[in-house]
């Protein structure tokens, strides 16, 4: 399908010095195919309109044609940095829809793989935001090196680095392989040292502070009204983490803190990822110690030809990027009547313009980077 620019972004330039610029969709700092129509006076942003849809494939329509289980591997492709949490959100929504119990061991495995996913998402974030500030390469490669070690664990467990297709309704697809837990535990032990190194290299850096502090400030009240979620919401000082609020899975048995920002600027959004990564390590250590033996899949659930009772449910989890929810409607059949994804990456962009107005064009990339989007999820 060819694309026809409906209106040129260069139309309607007003006033002396006003310039409309189309940023993206192939800009390296837009994290994929994302475009912004930006109006500038000099270098100051006076208007910003995001343009979506370059990666749209109507995930929801395809899911309506699939069986319930058939959409599970497709959720991997939403936020492809964090496929396991996408699986988890979908499984949890279906479990709410059909009233399915999950065995204890499976809940622990979900927490372990989910927190490993959060760890690698936040690590990659640290690399990408440095790239957005112009520090191409080094930080990103440091981050990717660590991420690869977690992906190796996922590959061992699921057979795939990223497209894991791991969760099932009422549990997980397979139990942990022999030796996996020890390897994962040993790996997580090394992680604080990596985070310390990253922090030593980055957080006190003068250029980083100058680029992040006081940029893209967002108040907690606006963040709530704009539906922002996850680290971006908490960086604005709002104490809201679905792991605590909904207390799903075995999270109530694990002790962890919810970091919060005080200013709501890019620096808070940067630091909150570092702090959350440290809390994820605490969660992982407790989960490694507590995980019981037992079944990993509810045997009462017929996965193939799965037919949930008629009705609807909205299920959500705290994904690494924010609230990942699924709104599902069943009419008792083998296919969903309606399947809707609540993508945190898209909704966290709602206030992008508000955050960018009055800043310089170079800051737009940093603000966008601090939100942490993945276009597979934004456009679906």
């Amino acid at each position, binding site marked *: 399908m060819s694309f026809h620019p409906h209106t040129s972004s260069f139309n309607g330039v007003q006033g002396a010095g006003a310039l409309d610029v189309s940023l993206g969709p192939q800009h390296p700092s837009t994290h994929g195919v994302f475009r912004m129509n930006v109006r500038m006076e000099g270098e100051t942003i006076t208007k910003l309109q995001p343009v979506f849809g370059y990666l749209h494939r109507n995930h929801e329509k395809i899911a309506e044609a699939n069986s319930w289980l058939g959409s599970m591997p497709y959720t991997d492709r939403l936020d492809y940095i964090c496929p396991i949490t996408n699986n988890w959100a979908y499984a949890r929504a279906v479990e709410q829809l059909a*009233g399915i119990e999950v065995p204890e061991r499976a809940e622990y495995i979900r927490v372990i793989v989910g927190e490993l996913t959060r760890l690698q998402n936040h690590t990659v974030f640290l690399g990408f935001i440095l790239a957005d500030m112009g520090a191409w390469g080094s930080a990103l490669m440091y981050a990717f090196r660590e991420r690869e070690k977690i992906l190796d664990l996922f590959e061992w467990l699921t057979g795939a680095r990223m497209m894991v297709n791991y969760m099932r309704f009422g549990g997980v697809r397979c139990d942990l392989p022999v030796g996996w837990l020890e390897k994962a535990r040993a790996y997580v032990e090394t992680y604080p040292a990596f985070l310390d190194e990253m922090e030593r290299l980055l957080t006190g850096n003068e250029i980083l502070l100058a680029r992040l502090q006081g940029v893209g400030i967002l108040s907690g009240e606006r963040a709530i009204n704009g539906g922002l979620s996850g680290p971006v919401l908490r960086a604005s000082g709002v104490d809201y983490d679905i792991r605590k609020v909904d207390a799903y899975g075995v999270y109530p048995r694990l002790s962890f803190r919810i970091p919060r920002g005080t200013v709501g600027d890019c620096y808070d959004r940067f630091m909150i990822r570092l702090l959350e990564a440290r809390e994820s390590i605490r969660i992982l250590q407790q989960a490694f110690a507590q995980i019981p033996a037992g079944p990993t899949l509810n045997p009462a659930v017929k996965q193939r030809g799965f037919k949930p009772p008629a009705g*609807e449910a909205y299920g959500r989890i705290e994904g690494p990027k924010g609230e990942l929810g699924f709104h599902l409607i069943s009419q008792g059949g083998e296919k969903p009547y309606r399947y809707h994804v609540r993508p945190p990456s898209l909704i966290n962009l*709602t206030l992008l313009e508000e955050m960018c107005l009055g800043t310089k064009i170079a800051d737009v990339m940093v603000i966008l980077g601090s939100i942490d989007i993945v276009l597979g999820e934004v456009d679906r």
Partner: protein
Amino acid sequence: MTALTPEFVLARIQAALPEARVELVPNPSPSGQHALVVDRRDALQVAQFLKNDPELLLDYATNVSGVDYADHLEAVYHLFSIAKRQGPITLKTRTGDRAKDVTVPSLTPVWKSADFQEREAFDLFGIRFEGHPDLRRLLMWEEFADHPLRKDYIAPDDYEYEPTPHGAIVAKSQAHFSSVAHPASSPNA
């Protein structure tokens, strides 16, 4: 999270806004998320009340989705309260039919989070959100004529691997592209 029952919310609405037409529609699913269906003429008023009532404080409208039923379209809102840590409450508004009377009020003035999501429901279902500050397509392109998530949608069949496009499919395809002059997008050009 504190359980907030839709029955309680309904009673609060009826006490404060006795003339508002709100109906509790039970959900047979084990999720127990019963819906409050509000008449579209009262939706904005009810939404304002839900957000500001000190007992409810539903300040966080996380999810908005459209649904296509046989005789009407529906906009579904999932509301939570961050202040009181309660929810979800499912709020629904319905259009009159699927063809002509497809207007419901936009709740974006109440919850900014509905902005992109209402645009998405407009784009994919053709629900017109009256009072939305910027109701444009979100994911499909501006010239696109149809609403792909509707149940009766037929995808335009202009794929290269289709050897013989035929019948209703090719007619639909031609209708899609008749308004677009660009040669690359005409079927089988």
